[in-house]
């Protein structure tokens, strides 16, 4: 599929995918990053995303789903605009990750894989994110926040609320 034909992705992403599938010795090598980049833009792996990626690579939709279900970052329903991922693995746990996670649950009123009613935030307890020496750490989408205490929670959420407001007023 070329980007000039119907695509559910933005022209930029469609063009990027056109290049990506040609980059490797086999087209299929582009699959895992394509799924993640598609999710970044669309929000989740919808049926339409699966269909177009299968088409672009030249494999079946079942093949795509078979791979997509393996990777923990890939999801099949929408998350919040800002996905808060709290690491509770050992290094973070030792430095209070569960207190931090509880505070996020209280402030957002949601639990593991929950989404707030306004769709702004979702919450996830995740495995080690590679920030062990700066624990406890979280990721909001791809941004790292480290050396945290529960006192930081309100401020972090406010920052992202502010960012969403600023984006809203620009439109």
């Amino acid at each position, binding site marked *: 599929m070329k980007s000039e034909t119907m695509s559910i992705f933005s022209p930029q992403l469609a063009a990027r995918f056109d290049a990506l599938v040609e*980059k490797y010795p*086999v087209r299929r090598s582009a699959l*895992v990053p394509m799924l993640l980049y598609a999710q970044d833009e669309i929000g989740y792996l919808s049926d339409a995303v699966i269909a177009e990626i299968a088409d672009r690579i030249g494999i079946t939709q079942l093949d795509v789903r078979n791979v997509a279900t393996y990777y*923990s*970052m890939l999801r099949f329903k929408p998350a919040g605009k800002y996905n808060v991922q709290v690491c*509770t693995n050992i290094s973070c746990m*030792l430095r209070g990750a569960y207190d931090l996670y509880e505070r996020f649950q209280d402030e957002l009123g949601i639990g593991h894989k929950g989404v707030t009613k306004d769709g702004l935030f979702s919450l996830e307890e995740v495995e080690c994110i590679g920030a*062990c020496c700066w624990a406890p750490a979280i990721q909001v989408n791809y941004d790292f926040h480290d050396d945290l205490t529960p006192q930081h929670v309100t401020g972090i959420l406010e920052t992202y609320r502010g960012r969403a407001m600023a984006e809203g007023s620009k439109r």
Partner: protein
Amino acid sequence: MPRLVSHPDEVKVVSKRFGQGAANIDRYIELGGYESTKKCLAQGPEWIIEEMKSSSLRGRGGAGFPTGLKWSFVPKQSAKPKYVLVNGDESEPGTCKDHLIFLHDPHAVIEGTIIAGLAIGAKTGFIYLRGEYRYLLNIMEKAVADAYAKGFLGKGIFGSDTEFQIITQSGAGAYEVGEESALMESLEGKRGVPRIKPPFPAVVGLYGGPTVINNAETIATVPHVIAMGGAAFAAIGSPRNGGTRLFSISGHVERPGVYELPMGFNLKKMIYEVAGGIRGGRTLKAVVPGGSSTPVLLPAEIEELGMDFDQVGKAGSMLGSGGVVVIDDQTCMVEFALRTISFYQHESCGWCIPCREGTDWLKKSLTRFHAGYGVAKDIDNIQYLAENMMGRTFCPLGDAAAMPTLGFVKKFRKEFEDHLNGKPCPFAKHVELAVV
């Protein structure tokens, strides 16, 4: 931003450009960058492999296999293209060293990849980063683009007639993909399940071609080995354990951080002097020496322990990924064991039944146990289960789950017994343990 730390006992080789702005290619060159690649282009593959062998550099991913030897296994003649694959899927709990390498010194990774390619006769290298490291992937991709622009990558690198291409790749969340054969599967666009060995990747690897797979830290170390010479690098470390290592020290210490120390550095000194001792003046209870898959050590066991592959192995654990997790006396070891096994249960790819079922049963048993609903027989059952996972899977994830579990049961049996018969956990704070 990850905090950089420093201590006078450090010997900065791999980390010497951290915090120096070396992600910028001109700055990297100013700091002596890309000289090693030029040297290797002039000297040729045999010379590179000999330097690597004499350096005693051993794989930083965890297994500790000698890098030069690994490279020498790649057949000289091959009908299929050969590849270099850099494993930046850093996911072992307690380990965050590659995070800093990608952030501060991406060109060292590129240089190491080119040199590995020159050594084995590959024209393409892949640098695979875990999906969570998106901001680091952006830094890596910028560095690769800059290297292409300077003619350090592509056709005729550094004005020679040698070609070398680098492709960066993002994962999408999977610990198992850090295992080398699962990594190749993922890069081929498949589920990250392991392949049976033999054949080993050096003979049949990525796309069926001979492939060298090295950890990102190993690769970032390569240009330094070339610059200082294999023998000089080896001299920094302990016997058969060349050079320095990036130790990620985390948990209950005053100054957690990534410290670069010579191989063989005393673990007690590492905790009490380099990392500032136990937080809040508490007492040391246990240390996980090399990432969460390595068996726990007691304070008495670290007194004379030098942190290299051989000494830690002799002490009944493993140096692993160099992730030192320090645990104080306020910690419930049953909860710690449960959180450890929960991770492996979550990350088991399900390909091999002993691992898929074993991790699940261990997690269930430990969950019940920590909640105070265990029975005496459970302790032996946990041990029996773990023993029967060992060595019965395609890849080491099964062992990685079983080994630490056996360690916890063996060394903290009393603490397990204290949880019996509905007694509340003496440390319990959380009513319900999180189920990821």
